[in-house]
């Protein structure tokens, strides 16, 4: 079914259809990946990059938490995490896999947190969204200190569910009117020293 999907079709989907789409996508991902305990032993580089910029013992929001691996890793470092995802199935699995973090099913555009988190993390999510600028605005509002985002560079890691392909100028545009205090670098997705196929963005409030 997914091979017939185009960004135009996805953009027209209702929230319910969107949730079904990501439930299916999440279950497909679960079938392909090794079990969660094995995943925990091989933390990808991008998650280590997130951890580097989160102050000690922070309250962290993980937007688009997927399988909960980032929350599990950050919780193991002493942070208190809340993961949100549009997929109810993903959230149910997260609750089983990561008992020391909280998870709720929530669409990013429905978020209404006001500086409730020390750090907000968003790993490879904004490329999937209909309105990434609104999402960044909501995430910026939710953080007290730092917003950390990773997203594929251009068409790297392309998948049918990517609605956006960001270049440097588009990333800068995302923050227009929000803040000038952000930095963009390139990092590898999975393994240190691998191809630098992700933009990694750090935006500081104070």
């Amino acid at each position, binding site marked *: 079914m997914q091979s017939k999907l185009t960004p135009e079709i996805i953009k027209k989907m209702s929230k319910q259809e969107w949730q079904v789409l990501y439930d299916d996508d999440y279950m497909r991902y679960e079938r392909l990946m090794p079990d969660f305990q094995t995943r925990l032993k091989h933390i990808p580089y991008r998650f280590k*990059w997130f951890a*580097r910029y989160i102050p000690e013992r922070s309250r962290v929001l993980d937007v688009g938490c997927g399988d909960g691996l980032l929350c599990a890793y950050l919780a193991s470092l002493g942070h208190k995490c809340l993961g949100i995802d549009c997929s109810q199935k993903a959230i149910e699995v997260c609750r089983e896999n990561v008992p020391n973090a909280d998870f709720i099913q929530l669409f990013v555009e429905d978020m209404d947190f006001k500086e409730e988190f020390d750090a907000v993390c968003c790993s490879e999510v904004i490329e999937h969204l209909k309105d990434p600028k609104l999402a960044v605005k909501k995430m910026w509002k939710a953080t007290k200190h730092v917003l950390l985002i990773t997203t594929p560079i251009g068409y790297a890691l392309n998948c049918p569910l990517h609605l956006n392909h960001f*270049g*440097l*100028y588009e*990333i*800068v545009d995302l923050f227009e009117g929000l803040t000038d205090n*952000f*930095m*963009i*670098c*390139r*990092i590898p997705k999975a393994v*240190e020293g691998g191809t630098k196929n992700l933009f*990694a963005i750090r935006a500081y409030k104070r």
Partner: protein
Amino acid sequence: MPKIKFLHCCTKITDPVKDCLEEVPRRGGMYNWLFLFKGEILPYQYVDDFEKYDVIQVNMSAVDMNLIPEIRRKLGKSSSTMLVINNDYVAESWAGLGTHPLYYEQIQRLGDMVFGTEPYQTSCLIDGAFCMPHPHYVEVLKHVSIDEKDKESDSVAVMFHWWEGKTYLPALLIQKIKQQKRIFARIYGYREEYDDMKRWSKALWDERVTHLRYPDFIEHLLQNTIFIEPVQYHTYGRTTVDTAILGIPTVGSNRVFSMRKCFPYTSFDPVDIKGMTRAVLRLLEDEDFREKVVRKAKEQAEYFNYKNSKKRFLAALEMAQKGAHHLKNAFWVWDEKNEMFVSSKEVDLNAI
């Protein structure tokens, strides 16, 4: 601000120019006027109607400067289209163009507005020329960084200028520093055929980096702890604007306009090896000084951003329309405080 129909007219759009126009982030320099005014670039033969543009810019390169009399002829003397002539060649290199000095002046007189990018270089242009550096895309470049783990400690980089070819002074400086501190020395843009020290270069530099595309160069540059630019020519200095925007502390020549502007605490006469050695060592060892230098540089780099560049360009156009060539033995320089051009007779060129 008024919308301007802007054309950059050239003889040919070569492959390096195409690269330059497409790279992300784009490098500072002349083509940024094109982006700033959302204009066009066209070879002369493809321009159907010169009159439809408000501004036609031509670079006084050895090739393109020959278009100037042709464009003037097509526009006539009373056209509302402004013919803007840019000369950003370092004045010390003009002899290389093989043009008679009087012809060089005659060409400039065909323009409605003439500008150079650096005060002492503009001083070599006709009376009433404007001193106006090209824009840098500071608005984007200031957000570019590299992963912390890729940063090096105690690495010092130098830029090789092939048209100057002089590496004796930078090499001497590096040796002075190496006598007192273990550093990694790197030279960018290296072309052995132009190096007056090529017999020694392998031994003098820990790494000789040849050609890099600008976006890769920027990331490579960010690895370095300190940048050194002891260039002996007078130029506005693209790389020192880059290092200022990127926050790389830089020690260099006070003949470079952007060095004086962005790095006032670390600008020296380019042969003041001892002064520069002291500055490099202090930057390596004194964190507070390093922060002070970087803070000032980032603040001053905004001078070159699109917003400020546009303001200067429009002000210069307006003055040129009213007739700016009445100055005798002087040119126009930008007074930042009052946001207007003033005669170079009224200012200390080393202080702007």
